[in-house]
């Protein structure tokens, strides 16, 4: 019966041409993406297509779905078509669940169609790219450091960041274990370093880093010096022979010159096994996006159980915006309290925050922290970052998003049922 009600909602949307409009608009936006590609990077266009899909097109579809799902039930109540349904053996739970499932099916249908268009466009845009610029087609598996420590002298420590001076005074060491289970078919591995740099030299554009990669089991060691740019991720390949012989590795890093400093923490270095699987990764990102849709649909349906169509739309949008605003406020707060910069940094790097902004942050942060316990946090539904970095979306991330959505949808559905049971249909 829930499926009957769901297909009815879906059919209503189709007859009202809602998917037609959203798919047409989404396709137009994706089609004009070459016109808004502003950077000269070779892989800019496929990346912009992904960004446009997951941020602009998805937002557009979400607005459409919110409008439809927030209007549907109040419309049924105002038109009194709900009488013909509730006079049948349909419980309030089935009505709510049917509506929610119907809108979810609609969202899934629109997302699948538009994502197929997006994938075709992305493949078409990247057909002529050289292999080194096809990073987004990777689905790298991420490994975090199991253990991190400083060997030698720590220059100073601030907010969890260990600063070490170059010239061999100290070195940061990260240990990675269980990089592969089987010795056969071992994929290539690479390491990504995002360290904080500082220098007493006049320029800190680039510093020299000595990086040693050592196999724990074979004790095989390879040290190289790399030139690293500030605010840029340094990616280095790991010798396949080391990985082949060792399941666990150790990465040691220190600034080569004694005028340079690096700020280090446990998650500054990540190791990736390079695997293909863009489509599967894309599907996972799409699944996370769908869960986001499901969440906002449940909220819109819950609002529509006791509010008029207009108020229901506004409340759903308010929740949607707050869900994103919370994240913005948190980022904003982090920015203001950012103090990882070392004393030796150039004066230009130290920005004095505006006192008004600090008060604003103080006033907003606490109430929003409380609200964040009630409102959904949409930052948990980010698949795009993984796709752009070519990182395989861990199954745990999907599991977490699914669990979060399930809890939220269950609560919203229960609240909707209670409201509808209390509600009278005049």
């Amino acid at each position, binding site marked *: *019966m829930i499926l009957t009600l769901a297909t*009815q909602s879906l*059919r209503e949307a189709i*007859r*009202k041409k809602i998917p037609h409009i959203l798919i047409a608009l989404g396709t137009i936006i994706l089609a004009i993406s070459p016109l808004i590609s502003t950077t000269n990077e070779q892989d800019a266009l496929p990346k912009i297509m992904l960004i446009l899909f997951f941020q602009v097109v998805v937002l557009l579809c979400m607005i459409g779905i919110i409008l439809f799902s927030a209007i549907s039930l109040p419309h049924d109540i105002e038109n009194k078509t*709900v*009488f*013909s349904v509730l006079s*049948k*053996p349909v419980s309030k739970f089935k009505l709510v669940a049917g509506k929610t499932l119907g809108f979810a099916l609609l969202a899934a249908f629109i997302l699948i169609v538009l994502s197929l268009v997006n994938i075709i466009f992305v493949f078409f845009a990247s057909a002529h790219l050289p292999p080194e610029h096809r990073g987004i087609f990777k689905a790298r598996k991420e490994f975090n450091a199991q253990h991190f420590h400083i060997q030698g002298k720590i220059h100073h420590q601030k907010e969890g960041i260990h600063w070490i001076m170059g010239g061999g005074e100290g070195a940061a060491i990260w240990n990675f274990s269980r990089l592969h289970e089987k010795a056969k078919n071992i994929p290539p591995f690479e390491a990504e370093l995002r360290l904080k740099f500082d220098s007493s030299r006049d320029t800190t554009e680039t510093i020299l880093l000595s990086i040693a990669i050592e196999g724990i089991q074979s004790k095989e060691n390879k040290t190289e010096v790399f030139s690293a740019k500030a605010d840029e991720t340094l990616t280095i390949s790991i010798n396949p022979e080391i990985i082949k012989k060792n399941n666990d590795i150790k990465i040691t890093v220190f600034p080569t010159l004694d005028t340079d400093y690096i700020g280090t923490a446990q998650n500054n270095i990540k190791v990736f096994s390079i695997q293909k699987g863009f489509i599967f990764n894309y599907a996972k990102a799409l699944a996370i996006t769908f869960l986001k849709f499901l969440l906002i649909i449940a909220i819109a349906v819950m609002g529509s159980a006791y509010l008029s169509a207009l108020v229901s739309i506004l409340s759903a949008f308010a929740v949607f915006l707050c869900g994103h605003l919370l994240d913005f406020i948190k980022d904003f707060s982090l920015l203001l309290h950012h103090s990882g910069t070392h004393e030796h940094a150039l004066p230009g790097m130290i920005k004095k925050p505006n006192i008004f902004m600090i008060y604003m942050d103080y006033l907003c942060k606490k109430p929003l922290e409380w609200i964040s316990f009630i409102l959904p946090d949409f930052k948990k539904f980010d698949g795009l970052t993984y796709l752009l970095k070519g990182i395989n979306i861990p199954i745990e991330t999907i599991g977490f998003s699914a669990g979060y959505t399930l809890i939220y949808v269950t609560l919203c559905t229960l609240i909707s049922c209670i409201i509808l049971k209390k509600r009278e249909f005049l």
Partner: protein
Amino acid sequence: MNSLAVKTEGLTKVYNDFWKRKSVSALTNLNLEIKHGEIFGLLGPNGSGKTTTVKLLLGFLHPTSGKSWLLGKPSGHIKTKYKIGFLPEESYLYKFLNAEEILDFYGKLFNLSRKERKERIDKLIQIVGLNPYRKRLLSKYSKGMLRRIGLAQAIINDPELIILDEPTSGLDPLGRREIKELIREFNKQGKTILLCSHLLSDVQSICNRIAILNKGILQVAGKVNELLSRSDITEFLVKNLSDKDQESVKVFIQGKNGEVISMHPHLSTLEELFVNIIQQHK
């Protein structure tokens, strides 16, 4: 209670305003019993509480006090709804569907199998006379056609109890007659019918028992014949009597201390005349 299809006990509904202050008393202390197999008419002017009673019976409204039962179960009981058919006062249907689709949708809500649905849809569309328009969207239906498809959806589940709120509103005399005949036919099949209407002639012609509501208060309830009959007045319907013989009868009655109130040729109803003319031209 099992012998009763509908029962209410002190059913009261007061509408409150936003501040929970008593605003309108829509129904006051309604005690009603409808037996299985009856055609029961609920009469009253607009705003008398008929639709409120129906909404309370179906669980769309919560009573301020009192209780009600349908087919032996408290109102709003989900499983009972498998045996109930309801036609609202206006046909509130999804206008983006056609006749077949809407009946199929409601049939699915009763968990009818595909085969059952197909059979019933064909039969019902035939019964309500919408066969030529079965593929037409309801948004393009006239008010009368919507009433007919509304009636079809009310009986898609072959219900034991049919609640009809103003079933003949918006219909032409021919349509009204057909609907009344259908109601009689349902009754012959053993179904109980609760009919709400302010069209007195409709109710009088088909109901076994009636109740009259006014301003939410039950004024009278009973069998139609009992309520309408007067023991001190007798009516004869006589055919083929000459004027002279009619005069003799009048004299005879007066001789027996009877008072002849009126003697006039029998008038058929306007509805009968209309239906005869239309049917002759068919």
